[in-house]
């Protein structure tokens, strides 16, 4: 069940991995590119790093950008924390698999959260690394980029729907979507942290009644 739900995410991540592998060839050798996917496992951070390197940015600017992009992981971790009963050492292992998609699947799935995070994370990780390797080897899936880019919002609509059961929840979801959209148009530079800001803002007020 976890693998079935993860498949569309993993397929999309694999395609983006290939695009990353091909694009990063301009700033690194093949072994370094694959190593980056093996040890970083973050599309947002890795794409941003390559983009900044191409503009001539230094390591400090890249690390600061990565820190900002990663800040949303704090919220995802906090949202997952209460559902994980595992001891600290096991949570430290599970943390490796925490990305937007696996956090979404874990929070929306009725299956045990630790197991969902592990299996969905391993599946997405394999897709990301294998995709990167294909990109480094010269595969080109640039023609699919637009279609795959459309798959992510659709899947997040699905996860939002699965996580929302009440009228109050629907209103909060709609408010977060509108706020995020407006902020993304207004300040695209902080686009990656906007969903976290909007989600916390609409989740703060308690439920009525």
């Amino acid at each position, binding site marked *: 069940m976890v693998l079935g739900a993860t498949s569309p995410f993993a397929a999309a991540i694999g395609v983006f991995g290939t695009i990353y592998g091909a694009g990063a060839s301009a700033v690194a050798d093949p072994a370094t590119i694959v190593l980056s996917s093996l040890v*970083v496992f973050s599309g947002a951070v890795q794409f941003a790093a390559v983009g900044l390197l191409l503009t001539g940015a230094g390591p400090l600017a890249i690390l600061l950008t990565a820190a900002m992009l990663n800040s949303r992981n704090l919220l995802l971790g906090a949202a997952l924390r209460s559902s994980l009963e595992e001891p600290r050492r096991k949570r430290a292992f599970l*943390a490796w698999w925490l990305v937007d998609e696996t956090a979404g699947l874990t929070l929306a799935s009725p299956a045990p959260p630790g197991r969902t995070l592990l299996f969905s994370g391993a599946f997405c990780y394999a897709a990301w690394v294998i995709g990167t390797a294909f990109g480094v080897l010269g595969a080109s899936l640039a023609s699919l980029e637009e279609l795959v880019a*459309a798959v992510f919002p659709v899947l997040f609509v699905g996860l939002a729907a699965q996580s929302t059961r009440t009228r109050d929840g629907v209103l909060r979801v709609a408010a977060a979507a509108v706020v995020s959209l407006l902020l993304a148009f207004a300040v695209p530079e902080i686009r990656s942290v906007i969903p976290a800001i909007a989600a916390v803002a609409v989740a703060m007020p308690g439920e009525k009644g």
Partner: protein
Amino acid sequence: MTIWLIVGLALLTYASRALALVFLPKPSPPVEAMLRRVPGPLFAGFAAISLVTSSGAATPPATLAAVLAALLVARTRSLLIILSAGLAGYSAAEVIGALF
């Protein structure tokens, strides 16, 4: 891209993932109730920002059509149905775009 930059990115990324998951104590009931309300809005936010490019422009109409089609069937709460509807919306927009 140097090895040291990759190591720095890896450490920063893992630290951000582990900080809350490993070191945060079990939240108090009010905080837990608030955190329980976060996922739906968070995913809606991710979907919404996907409709805007990093330069602040709108994504292609086909992406918007995919999301609108997905929203139409969101009440089913089925990831498969929502994904199928999204792909159908995307394809329909592409066909219409090619015709006109």
